[in-house]
Protein backbone atom coordinates (compact mmCIF):
# COMPACT_ATOMS: atom_id res chain seq x y z
CA UNK A 1 0.00 0.00 0.00
CA UNK A 2 1.35 3.38 -1.02
CA UNK A 3 -0.48 5.34 1.66
CA UNK A 4 0.15 3.93 5.12
CA UNK A 5 -0.93 6.62 7.55
CA UNK A 6 -4.19 8.49 8.05
CA UNK A 7 -2.05 11.65 8.06
CA UNK A 8 -1.20 10.99 4.42
CA UNK A 9 -4.91 11.63 3.82
CA UNK A 10 -5.76 14.23 6.49
CA UNK A 11 -2.56 16.20 6.02
CA UNK A 12 -0.01 17.52 5.50
CA UNK A 13 -0.41 20.95 7.00
CA UNK A 14 0.99 23.08 4.25
CA UNK A 15 1.24 26.33 2.37
CA UNK A 16 -1.19 26.32 -0.59
CA UNK A 17 -2.17 25.97 -3.28
CA UNK A 18 -1.49 22.33 -4.30
CA UNK A 19 -0.59 19.27 -2.24
CA UNK A 20 1.03 17.50 -5.18
CA UNK A 21 2.52 20.54 -6.93
CA UNK A 22 3.43 22.63 -3.86
CA UNK A 23 3.79 20.41 -0.75
CA UNK A 24 5.01 17.38 -2.73
CA UNK A 25 7.46 19.54 -4.65
CA UNK A 26 8.80 21.01 -1.40
CA UNK A 27 9.31 17.49 -0.06
CA UNK A 28 11.19 16.37 -3.18
CA UNK A 29 13.42 19.44 -2.89
CA UNK A 30 14.05 18.76 0.78
CA UNK A 31 15.01 15.11 0.21
CA UNK A 32 17.51 16.36 -2.39
CA UNK A 33 18.91 18.80 0.19
CA UNK A 34 19.09 15.99 2.81
CA UNK A 35 20.94 13.76 0.37
CA UNK A 36 23.33 16.49 -0.64
CA UNK A 37 23.86 17.24 3.04
CA UNK A 38 24.79 20.92 2.72
CA UNK A 39 23.83 24.14 1.00
CA UNK A 40 24.40 23.67 -2.74
CA UNK A 41 26.07 26.23 -4.97
CA UNK A 42 23.67 25.47 -7.76
CA UNK A 43 20.35 23.68 -8.29
CA UNK A 44 19.23 22.59 -11.73
CA UNK A 45 15.61 21.51 -11.82
CA UNK A 46 13.77 19.88 -14.71
CA UNK A 47 9.99 19.57 -14.71
CA UNK A 48 8.06 16.89 -16.60
CA UNK A 49 4.38 16.26 -17.38
CA UNK A 50 1.85 18.22 -15.35
CA UNK A 51 4.72 19.79 -13.39
CA UNK A 52 6.12 21.21 -16.64
CA UNK A 53 2.73 22.53 -17.79
CA UNK A 54 1.56 24.15 -14.56
CA UNK A 55 4.55 24.73 -12.28
CA UNK A 56 4.23 28.49 -12.22
CA UNK A 57 0.53 28.48 -11.38
CA UNK A 58 0.97 25.98 -8.57
CA UNK A 59 4.03 27.57 -7.04
CA UNK A 60 5.95 24.36 -7.78
CA UNK A 61 9.04 26.44 -8.55
CA UNK A 62 9.05 28.28 -5.23
CA UNK A 63 8.13 25.12 -3.31
CA UNK A 64 10.88 22.95 -4.74
CA UNK A 65 13.45 25.69 -4.11
CA UNK A 66 11.98 26.07 -0.60
CA UNK A 67 12.64 22.38 -0.06
CA UNK A 68 16.20 22.79 -1.31
CA UNK A 69 16.55 25.56 1.31
CA UNK A 70 15.47 22.92 3.88
CA UNK A 71 11.95 24.34 4.51
CA UNK A 72 9.08 22.04 5.56
CA UNK A 73 5.70 22.06 3.74
CA UNK A 74 4.14 24.47 6.25
CA UNK A 75 7.06 26.91 6.37
CA UNK A 76 5.71 30.29 5.23
CA UNK A 77 9.20 31.25 3.96
CA UNK A 78 8.39 29.00 0.95
CA UNK A 79 6.53 31.94 -0.59
CA UNK A 80 9.82 33.90 -0.82
CA UNK A 81 12.08 30.93 -1.61
CA UNK A 82 13.33 32.25 -4.95
CA UNK A 83 14.60 35.51 -3.51
CA UNK A 84 15.95 33.74 -0.42
CA UNK A 85 17.94 31.39 -2.67
CA UNK A 86 19.35 34.40 -4.48
CA UNK A 87 20.36 35.95 -1.16
CA UNK A 88 22.18 32.73 -0.30
CA UNK A 89 23.99 32.77 -3.66
CA UNK A 90 22.42 29.56 -4.90
CA UNK A 91 22.22 29.53 -8.68
CA UNK A 92 18.80 28.21 -9.75
CA UNK A 93 18.05 26.93 -13.24
CA UNK A 94 14.66 25.54 -14.27
CA UNK A 95 13.76 23.67 -17.43
CA UNK A 96 10.42 22.49 -18.80
CA UNK A 97 10.91 19.09 -20.43
CA UNK A 98 8.73 17.59 -23.16
CA UNK A 99 9.68 13.96 -22.49
CA UNK A 100 6.85 11.69 -21.34
CA UNK A 101 7.54 10.18 -17.91
CA UNK A 102 5.82 7.27 -16.13
CA UNK A 103 4.27 9.66 -13.64
CA UNK A 104 2.72 13.02 -14.64
CA UNK A 105 4.29 14.89 -11.70
CA UNK A 106 7.99 14.28 -12.10
CA UNK A 107 10.98 16.47 -11.27
CA UNK A 108 14.71 15.91 -11.73
CA UNK A 109 17.03 17.82 -9.44
CA UNK A 110 20.78 18.24 -9.72
CA UNK A 111 22.43 19.84 -6.68
CA UNK A 112 26.12 20.57 -6.62
CA UNK A 113 29.10 22.61 -5.55
CA UNK A 114 32.87 22.40 -6.04
CA UNK A 115 33.05 19.25 -3.87
CA UNK A 116 30.50 17.15 -5.71
CA UNK A 117 26.97 16.77 -6.98
CA UNK A 118 23.91 14.55 -6.70
CA UNK A 119 21.12 13.96 -9.14
CA UNK A 120 17.73 12.60 -8.20
CA UNK A 121 14.31 12.07 -9.71
CA UNK A 122 11.22 12.48 -7.54
CA UNK A 123 7.54 11.97 -8.24
CA UNK A 124 4.61 13.52 -6.41
CA UNK A 125 1.89 10.90 -6.28
CA UNK A 126 -0.94 12.90 -4.68
CA UNK A 127 -1.92 14.50 -1.40
CA UNK A 128 1.66 15.61 -0.72
CA UNK A 129 3.06 12.09 -0.83
CA UNK A 130 6.26 11.60 -2.79
CA UNK A 131 8.59 8.87 -3.97
CA UNK A 132 12.23 9.19 -4.98
CA UNK A 133 12.61 6.97 -8.03
CA UNK A 134 16.19 7.58 -9.07
CA UNK A 135 19.43 8.64 -7.40
CA UNK A 136 22.67 9.20 -9.33
CA UNK A 137 21.42 6.91 -12.07
CA UNK A 138 20.24 4.13 -9.73
CA UNK A 139 16.58 3.14 -9.73
CA UNK A 140 15.13 3.22 -6.25
CA UNK A 141 11.93 3.54 -4.33
CA UNK A 142 11.96 5.59 -1.19
CA UNK A 143 8.70 6.40 0.52
CA UNK A 144 10.18 9.17 2.63
CA UNK A 145 8.16 7.85 5.60
CA UNK A 146 10.95 6.08 7.48
CA UNK A 147 14.54 6.95 8.28
CA UNK A 148 16.68 5.48 5.55
CA UNK A 149 20.33 4.78 4.83
CA UNK A 150 21.65 5.03 1.29
CA UNK A 151 24.97 3.26 1.00
CA UNK A 152 27.13 3.46 -2.11
CA UNK A 153 29.48 0.48 -2.12
CA UNK A 154 31.54 -1.83 -4.32
CA UNK A 155 29.53 -4.63 -5.88
CA UNK A 156 31.35 -7.43 -4.05
CA UNK A 157 30.63 -10.29 -1.68
CA UNK A 158 30.42 -9.40 1.99
CA UNK A 159 29.06 -5.87 1.49
CA UNK A 160 25.56 -6.66 2.70
CA UNK A 161 26.82 -8.81 5.58
CA UNK A 162 29.22 -6.08 6.69
CA UNK A 163 26.53 -3.40 6.80
CA UNK A 164 23.97 -5.74 8.41
CA UNK A 165 26.48 -6.60 11.14
CA UNK A 166 26.94 -2.97 12.10
CA UNK A 167 23.16 -2.44 12.20
CA UNK A 168 22.67 -5.57 14.31
CA UNK A 169 25.38 -4.46 16.74
CA UNK A 170 23.49 -1.19 17.27
CA UNK A 171 20.17 -3.05 17.52
CA UNK A 172 18.69 -1.31 14.48
CA UNK A 173 15.93 -3.25 12.75
CA UNK A 174 15.77 -3.24 8.94
CA UNK A 175 12.24 -2.58 7.70
CA UNK A 176 12.93 -2.71 3.98
CA UNK A 177 16.06 -3.24 1.94
CA UNK A 178 17.02 -3.11 -1.72
CA UNK A 179 20.32 -3.53 -3.50
CA UNK A 180 20.92 -2.36 -7.04
CA UNK A 181 23.90 -1.89 -9.32
CA UNK A 182 24.60 -0.43 -12.71
CA UNK A 183 27.02 -3.15 -13.81
CA UNK A 184 28.33 -6.32 -12.25
CA UNK A 185 31.39 -5.67 -10.08
CA UNK A 186 31.04 -1.89 -10.30
CA UNK A 187 29.43 0.70 -8.05
CA UNK A 188 26.30 -0.48 -6.24
CA UNK A 189 23.67 1.10 -4.03
CA UNK A 190 22.10 -0.34 -0.89
CA UNK A 191 18.86 1.25 0.30
CA UNK A 192 17.88 0.40 3.84
CA UNK A 193 14.73 1.72 5.48
CA UNK A 194 14.93 1.35 9.26
CA UNK A 195 12.46 1.72 12.12
CA UNK A 196 14.52 4.01 14.36
CA UNK A 197 16.72 7.02 13.77
CA UNK A 198 20.37 6.13 13.44
CA UNK A 199 23.29 7.81 15.23
CA UNK A 200 26.10 9.53 13.37
CA UNK A 201 28.47 7.04 15.08
CA UNK A 202 26.78 4.22 13.22
CA UNK A 203 27.02 6.07 9.92
CA UNK A 204 30.74 6.56 10.48
CA UNK A 205 31.17 2.91 11.38
CA UNK A 206 29.52 1.84 8.11
CA UNK A 207 31.55 4.41 6.20
CA UNK A 208 34.73 2.90 7.70
CA UNK A 209 33.99 -0.48 6.10
CA UNK A 210 36.55 -0.95 3.30
CA UNK A 211 33.88 -1.90 0.79
CA UNK A 212 31.76 1.22 1.41
CA UNK A 213 32.27 4.48 -0.48
CA UNK A 214 29.58 6.77 0.90
CA UNK A 215 26.73 6.70 3.40
CA UNK A 216 23.82 9.12 3.55
CA UNK A 217 21.04 9.02 6.12
CA UNK A 218 17.75 10.72 5.46
CA UNK A 219 14.23 11.32 6.78
CA UNK A 220 14.84 11.63 10.48
Amino acid at each position, binding site marked *: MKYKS*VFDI*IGPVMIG*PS*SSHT*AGAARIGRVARDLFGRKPAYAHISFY*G*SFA*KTYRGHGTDVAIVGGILDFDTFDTRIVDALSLAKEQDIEIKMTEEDAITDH*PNTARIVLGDEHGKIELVGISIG*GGKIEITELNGFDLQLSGEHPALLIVHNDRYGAIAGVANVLAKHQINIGHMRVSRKEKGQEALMIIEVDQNVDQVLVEEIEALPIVQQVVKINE
Partner: protein
Amino acid sequence: MFRNVAELVELAEAKNCKISDIMIEQEMEITGRTKDEILSQMDRNLKVMEEAVERGITQDVRSHSGLTGGDALLLQNYMKSGKSLSGEFMLDAVSKAIATNEVNAAMGTICATPTAGSAGVVPGVLFALKEKLNPTREQMVAFLFASGAFGFVVANNASISGAAGGCQAEVGSATGMAAAAIVELAGGTPSQSAEAMAIALKNMLGLVCDPVAGLVEVPCVKRNAMGASNAIVAADMALAGIKSRIPCDEVIDAMYKIGQTMPTALKETAQGGLAATPTGRELEAKIFGIALNKK
Protein backbone atom coordinates in the same frame (compact mmCIF):
# COMPACT_ATOMS: atom_id res chain seq x y z
CA MET B 1 -5.55 -3.74 8.22
CA PHE B 2 -8.52 -2.92 5.98
CA ARG B 3 -7.92 -2.90 2.23
CA ASN B 4 -11.31 -1.76 1.08
CA VAL B 5 -14.57 -0.24 2.30
CA ALA B 6 -16.25 -3.64 2.71
CA GLU B 7 -13.50 -4.74 5.12
CA LEU B 8 -13.62 -1.43 6.95
CA VAL B 9 -17.37 -1.72 7.55
CA GLU B 10 -17.03 -5.38 8.50
CA LEU B 11 -14.33 -4.58 11.08
CA ALA B 12 -16.40 -1.80 12.62
CA GLU B 13 -19.50 -3.99 12.80
CA ALA B 14 -17.63 -7.00 14.22
CA LYS B 15 -16.07 -4.86 16.96
CA ASN B 16 -19.28 -2.89 17.42
CA CYS B 17 -17.39 0.38 17.14
CA LYS B 18 -17.13 3.35 14.82
CA ILE B 19 -15.20 3.71 11.57
CA SER B 20 -13.08 6.40 13.26
CA ASP B 21 -12.09 3.92 16.02
CA ILE B 22 -10.89 1.42 13.41
CA MET B 23 -8.80 4.13 11.73
CA ILE B 24 -7.22 5.18 15.06
CA GLU B 25 -6.44 1.54 15.95
CA GLN B 26 -4.82 0.94 12.58
CA GLU B 27 -2.74 4.09 12.88
CA MET B 28 -1.48 2.91 16.29
CA GLU B 29 -0.60 -0.48 14.85
CA ILE B 30 1.24 0.84 11.79
CA THR B 31 3.17 3.68 13.40
CA GLY B 32 3.67 2.25 16.89
CA ARG B 33 2.62 5.62 18.32
CA THR B 34 0.28 6.01 21.30
CA LYS B 35 -3.38 6.90 20.94
CA ASP B 36 -2.74 10.23 22.66
CA GLU B 37 -0.02 11.20 20.19
CA ILE B 38 -2.22 10.33 17.24
CA LEU B 39 -5.26 12.15 18.61
CA SER B 40 -3.26 15.27 19.38
CA GLN B 41 -1.71 15.36 15.90
CA MET B 42 -5.21 15.23 14.43
CA ASP B 43 -6.30 17.91 16.87
CA ARG B 44 -3.51 20.15 15.55
CA ASN B 45 -4.69 19.53 11.98
CA LEU B 46 -8.23 20.41 13.08
CA LYS B 47 -6.91 23.67 14.49
CA VAL B 48 -5.25 24.53 11.16
CA MET B 49 -8.57 23.88 9.40
CA GLU B 50 -10.42 26.00 11.93
CA GLU B 51 -8.05 28.94 11.44
CA ALA B 52 -8.32 28.74 7.65
CA VAL B 53 -12.13 28.68 7.79
CA GLU B 54 -12.17 31.58 10.25
CA ARG B 55 -9.82 33.62 8.09
CA GLY B 56 -11.82 32.94 4.94
CA ILE B 57 -15.24 33.85 6.33
CA THR B 58 -14.13 37.00 8.15
CA GLN B 59 -11.44 38.49 5.90
CA ASP B 60 -11.48 39.49 2.28
CA VAL B 61 -8.82 36.95 1.22
CA ARG B 62 -7.51 37.45 -2.33
CA SER B 63 -5.17 35.27 -4.34
CA HIS B 64 -2.08 36.70 -6.05
CA SER B 65 -3.64 36.22 -9.48
CA GLY B 66 -6.81 37.99 -8.41
CA LEU B 67 -8.92 35.14 -9.82
CA THR B 68 -10.46 34.13 -6.51
CA GLY B 69 -11.30 35.54 -3.10
CA GLY B 70 -14.05 37.19 -1.15
CA ASP B 71 -16.82 34.75 -2.11
CA ALA B 72 -17.02 33.06 1.31
CA LEU B 73 -17.64 36.47 2.81
CA LEU B 74 -20.36 37.27 0.22
CA LEU B 75 -22.14 34.04 1.05
CA GLN B 76 -21.93 34.62 4.82
CA ASN B 77 -23.49 38.06 4.37
CA TYR B 78 -26.20 36.67 2.09
CA MET B 79 -27.07 34.03 4.70
CA LYS B 80 -27.67 36.78 7.26
CA SER B 81 -30.33 38.30 4.99
CA GLY B 82 -32.48 35.25 5.73
CA LYS B 83 -33.48 34.92 2.08
CA SER B 84 -31.40 31.89 1.17
CA LEU B 85 -33.18 29.16 -0.75
CA SER B 86 -31.00 26.18 0.12
CA GLY B 87 -31.01 26.85 3.86
CA GLU B 88 -28.57 28.20 6.37
CA PHE B 89 -26.79 24.93 7.23
CA MET B 90 -26.15 24.09 3.59
CA LEU B 91 -24.82 27.54 2.78
CA ASP B 92 -22.74 27.64 5.95
CA ALA B 93 -20.96 24.45 4.82
CA VAL B 94 -20.56 25.79 1.29
CA SER B 95 -19.15 29.13 2.46
CA LYS B 96 -16.70 27.42 4.83
CA ALA B 97 -15.53 25.12 2.04
CA ILE B 98 -15.00 28.18 -0.17
CA ALA B 99 -13.22 29.94 2.71
CA THR B 100 -10.65 27.17 3.01
CA ASN B 101 -9.93 27.08 -0.71
CA GLU B 102 -9.67 30.84 -0.92
CA VAL B 103 -7.03 30.75 1.80
CA ASN B 104 -5.30 27.91 -0.05
CA ALA B 105 -5.30 29.85 -3.33
CA ALA B 106 -3.75 32.81 -1.51
CA MET B 107 -0.86 30.53 -0.46
CA GLY B 108 -2.17 30.51 3.11
CA THR B 109 -1.78 27.64 5.56
CA ILE B 110 -4.24 24.77 5.19
CA CYS B 111 -4.46 21.05 5.91
CA ALA B 112 -4.75 18.84 2.82
CA THR B 113 -7.94 16.69 2.96
CA PRO B 114 -7.00 14.62 0.99
CA THR B 115 -5.29 17.24 -1.19
CA ALA B 116 -4.90 21.01 -1.08
CA GLY B 117 -7.10 21.57 -4.12
CA SER B 118 -9.88 19.64 -2.38
CA ALA B 119 -9.10 20.91 1.13
CA GLY B 120 -12.39 22.79 1.50
CA VAL B 121 -15.00 20.03 1.47
CA VAL B 122 -14.21 18.15 4.70
CA PRO B 123 -13.61 21.19 6.96
CA GLY B 124 -16.46 23.12 5.31
CA VAL B 125 -18.96 20.45 6.21
CA LEU B 126 -17.42 19.84 9.64
CA PHE B 127 -17.50 23.47 10.79
CA ALA B 128 -21.10 23.84 9.61
CA LEU B 129 -22.01 20.68 11.55
CA LYS B 130 -20.32 22.24 14.57
CA GLU B 131 -23.03 24.91 14.60
CA LYS B 132 -25.87 22.49 13.89
CA LEU B 133 -25.10 19.42 16.03
CA ASN B 134 -22.86 20.91 18.72
CA PRO B 135 -20.32 18.09 18.67
CA THR B 136 -17.56 17.80 21.28
CA ARG B 137 -13.97 18.48 20.23
CA GLU B 138 -13.38 14.69 20.42
CA GLN B 139 -16.25 14.08 18.01
CA MET B 140 -14.83 16.62 15.59
CA VAL B 141 -11.45 14.89 15.70
CA ALA B 142 -13.24 11.56 15.17
CA PHE B 143 -14.93 13.06 12.10
CA LEU B 144 -11.49 13.55 10.57
CA PHE B 145 -10.46 9.96 11.32
CA ALA B 146 -13.68 8.67 9.76
CA SER B 147 -13.16 10.71 6.61
CA GLY B 148 -9.50 9.71 6.64
CA ALA B 149 -10.44 6.01 6.71
CA PHE B 150 -12.46 6.33 3.50
CA GLY B 151 -9.81 8.51 1.88
CA PHE B 152 -7.21 5.90 2.80
CA VAL B 153 -9.09 3.27 0.79
CA VAL B 154 -9.48 5.58 -2.22
CA ALA B 155 -5.81 6.63 -2.15
CA ASN B 156 -4.60 3.03 -2.09
CA ASN B 157 -7.14 1.48 -4.46
CA ALA B 158 -7.64 4.36 -6.89
CA SER B 159 -6.05 7.80 -6.70
CA ILE B 160 -6.31 11.14 -4.95
CA SER B 161 -4.27 13.00 -7.56
CA GLY B 162 -5.84 15.30 -10.12
CA ALA B 163 -2.87 14.75 -12.42
CA ALA B 164 -3.44 11.00 -12.26
CA GLY B 165 -7.24 10.78 -12.00
CA GLY B 166 -8.87 14.13 -12.64
CA CYS B 167 -10.96 16.22 -10.23
CA GLN B 168 -13.13 13.19 -9.42
CA ALA B 169 -10.04 11.84 -7.60
CA GLU B 170 -9.64 15.02 -5.57
CA VAL B 171 -12.94 16.81 -4.93
CA GLY B 172 -14.75 13.55 -5.70
CA SER B 173 -12.79 11.70 -3.02
CA ALA B 174 -13.14 14.56 -0.54
CA THR B 175 -16.90 14.61 -1.11
CA GLY B 176 -17.23 10.88 -0.51
CA MET B 177 -15.04 11.11 2.60
CA ALA B 178 -17.11 13.98 4.00
CA ALA B 179 -20.42 12.26 3.26
CA ALA B 180 -19.30 9.13 5.12
CA ALA B 181 -18.04 11.11 8.10
CA ILE B 182 -21.25 13.19 8.34
CA VAL B 183 -23.21 9.94 8.65
CA GLU B 184 -21.02 8.80 11.55
CA LEU B 185 -21.26 12.12 13.39
CA ALA B 186 -25.03 12.20 12.86
CA GLY B 187 -25.37 8.76 14.47
CA GLY B 188 -25.64 6.55 11.38
CA THR B 189 -24.15 3.06 11.03
CA PRO B 190 -20.83 2.15 9.38
CA SER B 191 -22.67 0.65 6.41
CA GLN B 192 -24.70 3.85 6.02
CA SER B 193 -21.38 5.72 5.89
CA ALA B 194 -20.32 3.46 3.01
CA GLU B 195 -23.63 4.09 1.21
CA ALA B 196 -23.19 7.86 1.61
CA MET B 197 -19.66 7.66 0.21
CA ALA B 198 -20.88 5.60 -2.75
CA ILE B 199 -23.77 7.97 -3.51
CA ALA B 200 -21.56 11.05 -3.24
CA LEU B 201 -18.70 9.70 -5.34
CA LYS B 202 -21.06 8.37 -8.03
CA ASN B 203 -22.13 11.93 -8.64
CA MET B 204 -18.57 13.12 -9.05
CA LEU B 205 -17.49 10.45 -11.56
CA GLY B 206 -15.96 11.82 -14.72
CA LEU B 207 -15.18 15.22 -13.26
CA VAL B 208 -12.08 16.52 -15.03
CA CYS B 209 -9.21 18.59 -13.66
CA ASP B 210 -9.02 21.68 -15.88
CA PRO B 211 -7.63 24.57 -13.84
CA VAL B 212 -7.44 27.91 -15.62
CA ALA B 213 -3.77 28.92 -16.00
CA GLY B 214 -2.88 25.81 -13.99
CA LEU B 215 -3.85 27.66 -10.82
CA VAL B 216 -5.77 25.91 -8.03
CA GLU B 217 -8.49 28.53 -8.24
CA VAL B 218 -10.90 28.32 -11.18
CA PRO B 219 -12.91 26.09 -11.00
CA CYS B 220 -11.41 24.43 -7.89
CA VAL B 221 -12.89 26.80 -5.30
CA LYS B 222 -16.46 26.42 -6.58
CA ARG B 223 -16.06 22.67 -7.06
CA ASN B 224 -15.27 22.44 -3.35
CA ALA B 225 -18.45 24.42 -2.68
CA MET B 226 -20.53 21.96 -4.69
CA GLY B 227 -18.65 19.02 -3.16
CA ALA B 228 -19.74 20.17 0.30
CA SER B 229 -23.40 20.39 -0.73
CA ASN B 230 -23.21 17.05 -2.54
CA ALA B 231 -21.76 15.43 0.60
CA ILE B 232 -24.59 16.71 2.81
CA VAL B 233 -27.32 15.51 0.44
CA ALA B 234 -25.65 12.11 0.03
CA ALA B 235 -25.37 11.76 3.83
CA ASP B 236 -29.05 12.63 4.27
CA MET B 237 -30.02 10.09 1.61
CA ALA B 238 -27.99 7.35 3.32
CA LEU B 239 -29.39 8.28 6.75
CA ALA B 240 -32.89 7.99 5.25
CA GLY B 241 -32.06 4.39 4.39
CA ILE B 242 -31.34 4.81 0.69
CA LYS B 243 -28.73 2.40 -0.63
CA SER B 244 -26.37 2.66 -3.58
CA ARG B 245 -27.10 -0.08 -6.15
CA ILE B 246 -23.38 -0.16 -6.93
CA PRO B 247 -21.33 -1.01 -3.83
CA CYS B 248 -18.89 1.63 -2.61
CA ASP B 249 -15.74 -0.33 -3.53
CA GLU B 250 -16.98 -0.79 -7.10
CA VAL B 251 -17.70 2.94 -7.38
CA ILE B 252 -14.12 3.62 -6.25
CA ASP B 253 -12.84 1.15 -8.81
CA ALA B 254 -14.96 2.78 -11.53
CA MET B 255 -13.49 6.16 -10.56
CA TYR B 256 -9.99 4.72 -10.91
CA LYS B 257 -10.69 3.30 -14.36
CA ILE B 258 -12.35 6.48 -15.57
CA GLY B 259 -9.25 8.37 -14.40
CA GLN B 260 -6.96 6.06 -16.32
CA THR B 261 -8.86 6.53 -19.56
CA MET B 262 -9.27 10.29 -19.12
CA PRO B 263 -7.21 12.26 -21.66
CA THR B 264 -4.08 14.00 -20.33
CA ALA B 265 -5.45 17.35 -21.48
CA LEU B 266 -8.08 16.99 -18.74
CA LYS B 267 -5.75 15.95 -15.94
CA GLU B 268 -4.20 19.04 -14.39
CA THR B 269 -2.28 20.14 -17.47
CA ALA B 270 -4.33 23.29 -18.15
CA GLN B 271 -4.70 22.17 -21.76
CA GLY B 272 -8.39 21.30 -21.94
CA GLY B 273 -11.82 21.96 -20.45
CA LEU B 274 -12.33 25.33 -18.77
CA ALA B 275 -8.62 26.11 -19.04
CA ALA B 276 -8.89 25.99 -22.84
CA THR B 277 -11.98 28.22 -23.14
CA PRO B 278 -11.44 31.67 -24.72
CA THR B 279 -11.86 33.35 -21.34
CA GLY B 280 -9.66 30.76 -19.63
CA ARG B 281 -6.89 31.41 -22.15
CA GLU B 282 -7.33 35.18 -21.86
CA LEU B 283 -6.99 35.02 -18.09
CA GLU B 284 -3.92 32.83 -18.38
CA ALA B 285 -2.27 35.27 -20.79
CA LYS B 286 -3.08 38.18 -18.51
CA ILE B 287 -1.76 36.48 -15.38
CA PHE B 288 1.53 35.39 -16.87
CA GLY B 289 1.90 38.43 -19.09
CA ILE B 290 2.36 36.45 -22.29
CA ALA B 291 0.88 36.91 -25.72
CA LEU B 292 -2.12 34.70 -26.51
CA ASN B 293 -0.74 33.46 -29.83
CA LYS B 294 2.23 31.89 -28.01
CA LYS B 295 -0.07 29.28 -26.52
